[in-house]
């Protein structure tokens, strides 16, 4: 690949063949990562017949897209709309609690002294490394014991516990905020709470955004927790709702051919709809994430 700057690095693979190998490798992986997504975007513009017959990468028609759209949103009297609403409620509800809880906690861990501080820090690090799914069944058993199963809180509250967000905030406050500024604010007459709200919080805007981003993406994509906690379809978020769509797709579940059955392009549309909010957030924050990462990289 011509992209390899031979002048600068003098790679031993500088020969024509070496570069070709690398170029082919990069292109193969581009195809591997991109082809399914491109195909998915095209699939929703086709009827179930053209999806099978036509070239996989041909563009379908607008009318087929509209038909798929109607089939998706008419499914079980608008269940998809309900599921998206639920997803928004759970993801945003948990996001708000996460921010209210994590940001002050990270601040306190970084900049104040209290008993059990070290213990809480270690607990945060350990829980951060435990996969989310590992605690789902125990949390189910616990919430089952107090009769919360089926309520939106059974999903929102566990998702609000977000040690990774506390860790990020903690790191930020312990490395990026000069303590002198906080001390100065104190001398100027701020009490402890005002130091946080008027000085530290405005400075921490980027990290608040970052915690919000990770929390939202993770909440929206969470499958196992709502799958276990919410027994009724009315309470499903869209990720779990997809399983209902799948169950009604004759192509994957021949026993389901009935009045309310779902065709493949409609299922594809459901998949796109289910990721749309996350996709939008991703597109907006990609530059900022990478920039944040590399900016940190050049500092030291």
């Amino acid at each position, binding site marked *: 690949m011509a992209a390899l700057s031979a002048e600068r690095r003098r790679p031993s693979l500088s020969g024509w063949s070496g570069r070709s190998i690398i170029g082919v490798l990069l292109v193969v992986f581009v195809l591997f990562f991109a082809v399914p997504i491109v195909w998915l975007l095209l699939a929703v513009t086709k009827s179930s017949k053209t999806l099978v017959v036509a070239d996989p990468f041909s563009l379908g028609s607008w009318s087929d897209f509209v038909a798929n759209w109607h089939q998706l949103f008419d499914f079980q009297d608008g269940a998809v709309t309900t599921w998206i609403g639920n997803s928004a409620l759970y993801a945003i509800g948990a996001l708000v609690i996460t921010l209210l809880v994590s940001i002050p906690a990270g601040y306190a861990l970084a900049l104040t002294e209290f008993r059990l501080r070290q213990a809480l820090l270690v607990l945060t690090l350990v829980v951060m490394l435990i996969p989310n799914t590992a605690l789902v*069944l125990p949390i189910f*058993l616990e919430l089952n014991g107090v009769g919360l199963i089926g309520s939106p809180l059974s999903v929102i509250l566990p998702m609000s516990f977000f040690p990774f967000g506390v860790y990020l905030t903690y790191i930020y406050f312990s490395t990026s905020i000069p303590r002198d500024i906080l001390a100065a604010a104190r001398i100027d007459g701020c009490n402890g709470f005002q130091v946080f709200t008027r000085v530290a919080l405005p400075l921490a805007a980027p990290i608040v955004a970052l915690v919000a981003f990770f929390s939202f993406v993770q909440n929206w994509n969470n499958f196992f927790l709502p799958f276990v906690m919410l027994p009724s379809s009315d309470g499903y978020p869209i990720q779990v709702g997809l399983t209902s769509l*799948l169950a009604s797709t004759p192509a994957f579940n021949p026993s389901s051919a009935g009045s309310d059955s779902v065709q493949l392009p409609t299922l594809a549309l459901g998949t796109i709809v289910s990721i749309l909010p996350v996709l939008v957030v991703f597109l907006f924050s990609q530059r900022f994430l990478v920039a944040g990462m590399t900016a940190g990289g050049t500092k030291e």
Partner: protein
Amino acid sequence: MTLAPPSGRPAVDASGRRRSGRGSGRPAGRAFARSPIGYLFVSPYALLAVVFGIVPSLYAVVLAFTNADGGFAGFDNFTKVVGDFRFWPAVFHVTTYLLIWLLGLVLFVVGLALVVHAVGVRWVSTTLRFVYYLPGALAGASSVLLWLFVLDPTASPVSGLLTAMGFESFVQVIQPGHLPAIFAIIAFWTGAGGWILIMYGALNNISTEVIEAARIDGANAVQIALRIQLPMLRKWVAYMGVMSLAAGTQLFVEPQLLSQASNAVVPNDYSLNQLAYQYAFQQNDFNGAAAISLILLVVALLLSWVFVTRGGLFEKE
């Protein structure tokens, strides 16, 4: 799963972690406040940590060692689940999947990160990273659904490839023997991009002086990659390995959806987490479910512990 989408999570971590050594000690500074506000600020978080971290773990322990009537059961629940005819196949499935996935992950993520990092043209490198990262937006059920299409020869965008490999129908593609590889591919497709970004960030952290010195000494790009960049990535590779290993033990959504889509060609007790789910919701045996959950939790905790103590992730500098 791969929930904890490594997709992006630690991406920022990349910048944060290097500095964590400095921050993690007891901060020393004159403005270090010893005020009651500390308690006020951490107590909501501490409460959540107790309710959704500590209590469920303890509750699982209690359930795992008691029987349905609440009496002490010793290790009965454990002998029961381990003796279950579905247990060892599930262990085998998850292990095979993990081996394939981890091997692929380490090999390709490190390789691609090195190559993308070496690409000199800025927009090419940016575009590559973006394309590799994009599938991370599709996590959980969405990515599995997408791969159901890809693996179904009638509709697949790569149907030509599938037929060339001798697959005529969806059921042929998802034969049990193929599943570990299939799950590994799905997990790689969703998660690898995030890790490539992290490795890329780590490569940027290697000071240019070191690289420059090596170049003056006559090292070529491949030698620099193997002798300097690779050893300096070691900690990150270990981090990726353990996070992915811990997450992979919890395999659930992939086999669950595949089982649903294949009319049970894929069994619904394929993975350990599914088996625990079966215990809880099909057999109403919460004690058995707790025993399996506890085994999985201990495995996850052990792996994190090994990493925290041996990997030096959080060690002070």
